[in-house]
């Protein structure tokens, strides 16, 4: 047996088992989140490839659009002069030149434009409803400045762009309104603080008002993305009232077929479901679970990934919430995702599986019935390490909540051999989890009076050698856990001598099954 405190600490990492369900979730995914965060920060710099959503003819709406040859050659000084002049033509020309500089791919002069003091001019242009071209150019320029670092975004907000953009949403010119949507998305994407500033300014009703059956797809894509940013980020979460406002429209968007819209809408759901059980409940109540499960089989990775993430979040919730996902058929989809060619998908699927395995034995039974043991064992054997780590958790959760029969089933499907092979990894945490699983299996065997057979099986599979080796492990807890296992189940021969096994029609860890559980 592992030492008491170790067990407790680990048990508290499972849903249902620990006292504090929020904490356990948090711990369980801290690492993933950190990775995601790292990735996110990276993509701030990298940015996302975007195709222009405004249709080409919308560009043609701005009459002076063609005069761009002259505009491009303006220097920053000339731009400053033009923008600050009183003549509308000069303002438009300067603003367009600035926008062009800010749209070039390499080293856009964000800071130079800000330092030149042009932001307040740009913001003031936003409200000139009688100068649509100028409005559009200014909105575009501000959008790109807000796409920079937090400091850049801050400059835009502090020049009063938020209310200006929100009123611009109502512009009758679609391309201008869409540019405002985009700019607001950049501001919301900066973090929880500006997100909540926008929400305070009632951005959500203004945005939702633009959704209609006639809205062009390009516009909807931008809008969905902006909505997803309004759902994004924790500490704090977006206010519940805002979430309630957004959700119905999100659900509506989730039933469209455009993959970009689906992707961003799914990401939004994944942000909203990434919280405690109450947060999950809000999402689940909308009845979207079955659509999410459906989208887990979507052909586009960009849709399937956030759908899987959302469902993964949901099954980390309460038993009831998990059951809803199961009823929606998540267990029928997971096997194919466990075998997906992309390791990141396998990992995510294994994570979801590990949380379902932490449920009551009824859910564990459904997991078995739906044929999830074979892919689980495959991943344990030959998955990517991150996937193996999740799969190991699944085994441990399974063995701690499953019935004796279920645990026997698990051992027979080859999981024992697979986790024994994993005992050679370097990660001490994983080793501890495996030792815990083995210990759980022994407890099941004890109930059947089959400990000796299991000891024998573990030994034959090379597990005893590995566990003995672990007694030399640097990590004290690993040493303790390994030592306890050996003490208890691989002790002196006299113990075996005393306990004569008379139970010969035992079905559990029989040698005939060895063939199947044998593995490299």
């Amino acid at each position, binding site marked *: 047996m592992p030492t008491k405190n170790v067990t407790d600490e680990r048990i508290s990492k499972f849903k249902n088992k620990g006292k504090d369900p929020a904490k356990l979730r948090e711990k369980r995914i801290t690492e993933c989140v950190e990775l*995601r965060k790292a*990735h*996110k920060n990276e*993509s*701030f*710099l*990298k*940015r*996302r*490839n*975007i*195709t*222009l959503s405004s249709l080409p003819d919308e*560009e043609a709406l701005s009459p002076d659009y063609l005069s761009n040859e002259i505009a491009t050659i303006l220097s920053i000084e000339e731009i400053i002069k033009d923008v600050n002049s009183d003549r509308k033509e000069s303002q438009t020309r300067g603003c367009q030149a600035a*926008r*062009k500089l*800010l*749209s*070039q*791919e390499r080293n*856009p002069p964000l800071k130079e434009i800000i330092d030149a003091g042009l932001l307040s001019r740009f913001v003031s242009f936003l409200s000139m409803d009688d100068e649509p071209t100028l409005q559009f150019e200014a909105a*575009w320029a501000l*959008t*790109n400045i*807000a*796409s*920079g670092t937090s400091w850049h*975004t801050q400059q835009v907000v502090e020049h009063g762009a938020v209310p200006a953009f929100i009123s611009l949403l109502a512009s009758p010119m679609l391309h201008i309104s869409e*540019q405002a949507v*985009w700019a607001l*998305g*950049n501001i919301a*994407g*900066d973090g929880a603080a500006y997100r909540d500033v926008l929400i305070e300014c009632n951005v959500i009703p203004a945005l939702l008002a633009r959704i209609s059956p006639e809205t062009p797809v390009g516009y909807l894509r931008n809008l969905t*993305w902006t909505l*997803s*940013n309004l759902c*994004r980020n924790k500490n704090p979460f977006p206010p519940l009232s805002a979430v309630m406002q957004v959700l119905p429209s999100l659900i509506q968007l989730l039933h469209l077929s455009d993959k970009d819209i689906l*992707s*961003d809408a799914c*990401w939004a759901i994944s942000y909203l479901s990434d919280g405690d059980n109450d947060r999950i409940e809000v999402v689940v109540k909308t009845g979207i679970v079955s659509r999410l499960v459906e989208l887990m089989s979507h052909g*586009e*990775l*960009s849709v*399937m*990934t*956030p759908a899987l993430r959302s469902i993964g979040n949901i099954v980390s919730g309460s038993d009831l919430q998990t059951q809803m996902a199961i009823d929606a058929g998540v267990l029928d989809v997971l096997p194919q995702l466990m075998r997906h060619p*992309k390791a*990141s*998908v396998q990992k995510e699927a294994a994570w979801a599986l590990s949380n379902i395995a932490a449920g009551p034995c009824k859910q564990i039974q459904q997991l078995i019935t739906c044929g999830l043991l074979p892919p689980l064992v*495959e991943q344990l054997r*030959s998955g990517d390490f991150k996937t193996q780590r999740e799969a190991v958790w699944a085994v441990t959760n399974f063995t701690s909540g499953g019935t004796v029969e279920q645990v026997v089933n698990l051992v027979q499907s080859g999981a024992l051999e697979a986790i024994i092979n994993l005992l050679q990894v*370097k990660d001490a945490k994983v080793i501890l989890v495996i030792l815990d699983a083995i210990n759980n299996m022994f407890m099941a065997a004890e109930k059947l009076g089959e400990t000796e057979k299991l000891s024998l099986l573990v030994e034959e599979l090379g597990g005893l050698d590995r566990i003995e080796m672990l007694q030399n492990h640097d990590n004290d807890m690993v040493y303790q856990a390994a030592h306890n296992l050996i003490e208890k189940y691989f002790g002196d021969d006299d113990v075996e001598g005393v306990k004569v096994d008379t139970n010969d029609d035992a079905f559990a860890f029989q040698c005939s099954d060895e*063939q199947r559980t*044998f*593995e*490299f």
Partner: protein
Amino acid sequence: MFISDIRKEFYEVVANQRVALLVSSDIDALCACKILQALFHCDQVQYTLVPVTGWQDLGTAFLEHKEQFRYFVLINCGANVDLLEMLQPDDDSIFFICDTHRPVDVVNVYNDTQIKLLIKQDDDLGVPSYDDIFRDEEDEGHDSGNESDGGSEPSGKRRRFDEGAVERRIERQRERREWEARRREILFDYEQYEYHGTSAAMMFFELAWVLTKDTKDMLWWAIIGLTDQWVHDKITHMKYVTDIATMQRHVSRHNHRNEDEENSLSIDCMRISFEYDLRLTLYQHWTLYESICNSCYTSCSFKLWTLNGQKKLQEFLADMGLPLKQVRQKFNSMDMTIKENLRDVIEEASNKYGMKDIRIQTFGVHFGFKNRFLASDMVHATAALLESTEKDESDSDNFIKALDSLSRSNLDRLHSGIELAKKKLIAIQQTVASCICTNLILSQGPFLYCYLMEGTPDVKLFSKPMALTLLCKYLLKAFVHSTRNKRCKLLPLIMAAPKDVEKGTVIVVGITPESETSDKKNFFGRAFEKASESTSSRTLHDNFDTSIIELKTEDRSKFLDALITLLS
């Protein structure tokens, strides 16, 4: 990275350090190890010798020694995988790799800090140029966003580009995709075939020479290393002849240098000589008759597994005028008169029987007055010791014995190795004969396939990689001589033999088609990997040669089916 100055960049670096020596289980590696040990003794370099039989072994050995050692010398292992990826060493561990396995993994080639390759660059490496396979981050930066990986989280902010920028970006992405496609193609071509480069023993001999610390013993080991590559058919005939010429220059230099001392022959003197000797295995330590019967070259030419072949052999002996009694006599006890010009007599008769190249360039050695060995004798004896299945001895016991048999102070060990080698050769010959006679070699379309069943005599012997490889080569040659099917003559061969009965596994070896002009480039390594992946067969790719794997017996048929589809 490749090391250009082996003395400065390798020897002088490790000279004052403690070194872990990880040595693969093949004869060339043993010889290389002997040379390096001798140098280390000379300069009092502290080292620990660890024999490794496969990748898992290598991983364990590294884990066990990484705390105490900073410098690792890997002999005949490690070059053909991304070693840093596999071992995950700390930043300060340094690996010197002297390995004949090709292709060298590109990451090993272009890592400048931890991987030092003791590999001659003129060795027909064909490494793709850096720019073709690596791209600097800066170039990638902007593009790598979500396009390549549709599954990552969207960015929080997005800039709007103007039309032109979008086009340029699309253009760049197209270029990048093309570059990636070309990269895949280049890497595929580069990694497609497995083959072998210059002997590790020769590399270390060259080091000894550069240090002017080379001795005759070292020279002899280098020759054995090279001969191992020939015996186990790892290099082309051209490469063998070229390297023999190199060794011959060293031999004449040494003989010349020590002429005066050497004239006073003493009981412990050592003399290496270039020979144009017979391709009859171990004949000087056997009877001529048995050697002819158990040498691949003669046995296949006569087709000794047929009655006709046996008859032809008798004719051949009669033709040479050698009395049967003499021929079945221990070679040592044969009449001096017969022995005197035996090689010429045999060559002449062989020419008549279509064996045009019964003689081959090689080297022999005299220890004192009595003991004479050919380089190939040494290879067979040491290999037999290394893969001995006689007693239940561990791999490392066998390794030490084999290593010992290479020292001239250990002639007893060498002789026991020769006896083992004879048994092994007889076993091979008998297995070849029974496989041919019972038609065990099946044509599977793109390759030939032969499975040795559990219960076949000597099957335990063939659970070892070198022995099974040798059997493969002999069997394929014999098959090519015996079949009338022209197409089959050009096919490679896959052979499977029981490996571990308890675990229920077989060892599988794939070899290149039999041909004098073969380039010895083996594609089975990749093919095995692919076939195993596509069928999720339970395979273990543990051998340093990727064309040798372990496979779960029950997965054999699906694995084979996949191979056939893959290669047709």
